[in-house]
């Protein structure tokens, strides 16, 4: 990072840490959601951005993490254990799924990952004894004040986002990032020059799965109630992609910037067009894709942006 970048970075982190001092729960909720999407987008970015694989299944890991954590937590175990179990299950699932799905490329990979979330949702719906099925799952109540809860989950999500960011940074400046870059540009060529593409792809996929599962588990504890159609919603797969496209795919800061920009827009739309919310959201997506194909970096002022984003 260059010196001005570092300065901005430190400033943003300090502001975030001080945010609960505002005492405004609405702002805090918004910030927590933004951080959660930043985590999901960074998770997506490892496979979708660095390796260039069209991953449409972040919702599968998110939902799996949410349910694993919720089941453990509602059986009376401490919340930290619930989150750890969720991450372990998410990671294991990603390893297995990676072995199977990463042979596919392009459209086939996109479709296969898209339907994984649907499969998990149907299974969760059917396994009523464990998951509560379509009735959803209530998580034990904390007994804290709403403000204390809001602050607690804000800091947890901030910690998770920080971990995801550090991971992204390390991946980008490491052999793994280099290998993933090669895979994106030409996988066959990467294979020929001796990069173990399968191994790196699976590592990337596992990182994505682990972080998405962690975000899901924290989300479940935070909202206190989850149901299959909520946590396996296809929007959890699609929104991170849009955020990454917006901020800059395969970059270090892009996912965060994209998440903030998109959610600011999303919140404005929600507040003003309740009935037409999804329609306006769709319209925004169409406009973004057609008129801002290279994301916000199209607005770069003498290349400053690109430099800032690519760290």
């Amino acid at each position, binding site marked *: 990072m260059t010196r001005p970048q570092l300065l901005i970075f430190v400033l943003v982190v300090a502001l975030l840490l001080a945010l609960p001092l505002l005492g405004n729960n609405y702002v805090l909720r918004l910030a927590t959601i933004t951080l959660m999407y930043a985590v999901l987008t960074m998770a997506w970015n490892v496979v*979708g951005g660095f390796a260039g694989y069209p991953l449409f299944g972040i919702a599968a890991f998110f939902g799996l993490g949410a349910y694993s954590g919720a089941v453990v937590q509602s059986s009376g175990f401490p919340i930290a254990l619930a989150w750890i179990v969720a991450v372990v299950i998410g990671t294991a699932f990603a390893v297995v799924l990676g072995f*199977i799905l990463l042979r596919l490329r392009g459209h086939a990979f*996109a479709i296969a990952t898209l339907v994984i979330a*649907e499969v998990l949702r149907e299974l969760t*719906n059917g396994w009523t004894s464990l998951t509560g099925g379509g009735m959803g799952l209530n998580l034990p109540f904390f007994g804290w004040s709403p403000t204390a809860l809001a602050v607690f989950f804000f800091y947890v999500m901030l910690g998770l986002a920080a971990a995801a960011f550090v991971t992204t940074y390390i991946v980008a400046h490491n052999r793994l990032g280099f290998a993933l870059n090669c895979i994106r540009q030409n996988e066959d060529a990467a294979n020929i020059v001796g990069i173990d593409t399968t191994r790196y792809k699976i590592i990337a996929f596992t990182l994505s799965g682990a972080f998405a599962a962690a975000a899901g588990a924290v989300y479940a504890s935070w909202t206190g109630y989850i149901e299959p159609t909520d946590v396996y919603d296809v929007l959890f797969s699609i929104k991170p992609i*849009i955020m990454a496209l917006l901020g800059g795919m395969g970059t270090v800061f892009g996912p965060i910037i994209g998440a903030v920009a998109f959610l600011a827009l999303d919140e404005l739309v929600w507040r003003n067009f309740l009935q037409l919310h*999804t329609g306006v*959201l769709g319209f925004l997506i*169409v406009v973004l*894709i057609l008129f801002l194909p290279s994301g916000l970096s199209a607005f770069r002022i003498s290349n400053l942006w690109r430099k800032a984003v690519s760290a």
Partner: protein
Amino acid sequence: MIFFQYLANGLILGGLYACIAAGFSLVWGVLSIINLLHGSFIVLGFYIAFFSYTVLGIHPFLSVITSAIVLGGIGYFVQLGLINRVITRSVLVTLILTFGLELMMNNAMLVSFSADYKKVLLAHPLGIAHLGNVFISLDRAASTVIAFLLILLLWLLLRLTSIGRAIVAVRFDREAAMLMGIDVNRTYAITFALGAAMAGAAGSLLSASFPVAPLSGPLFLSKAFVICVLGGVGSVPGAAVGGLAFGLLESFGAVLFGSEYALTLAFVVLIILLLVRPHGLLGVKGF
């Protein structure tokens, strides 16, 4: 024999499924985009048939023509004006674009048609035929026959007309087709229009058999995914075979595993097929 009943159910369902998937498969094969709008096109075709019947008294089978024309027109301009702008970019971009369009269309239908399920209740149904112990709803059987006629029509169009040949040429080699003087953008728009027209027709055909709500699109869409991969992407005869296979799979799968797992079973089959037979049951020669 209950077995023959399931067989008949599966085959009749399969005809409708084939019609649902044929257009989707054509678009995926030729334009190499996964069109998430396809499900919403089917739902709109349904509503055209529904209101034609309840307001004007036109039989859904006749509305097939109206739906095909209306949806074909919509499809033509959506492709020409919007999707063609990003057609050469990655699957990420095109898929997200059609997702955005789908959100808009679903929201519009939700506001205009209200969220509840509707179904065309025919005043004079054709009744039920008994073949031994097998019962067959004649309306459903008729819609299956029409579905196969439509697929045959689409296949003949691709085989025999010059625009059909142009579509096939663009599918195999976009650049070479361009050099032969084919207007690729227009060919894309016509292909997309054909896909949308098939979706609209399918929506009208199933209006007397299935209840549909504005947000039913994704369900049809997910079935189209599986059928398309079953039959081979881009292949019209493949979609017919895939549709029948999927109809049977769903009919017998519901018996073996319970109907709540029908979709799960279908998706598991989809993933296995993608891995072991990516060109579908018929293989590449099926085009």
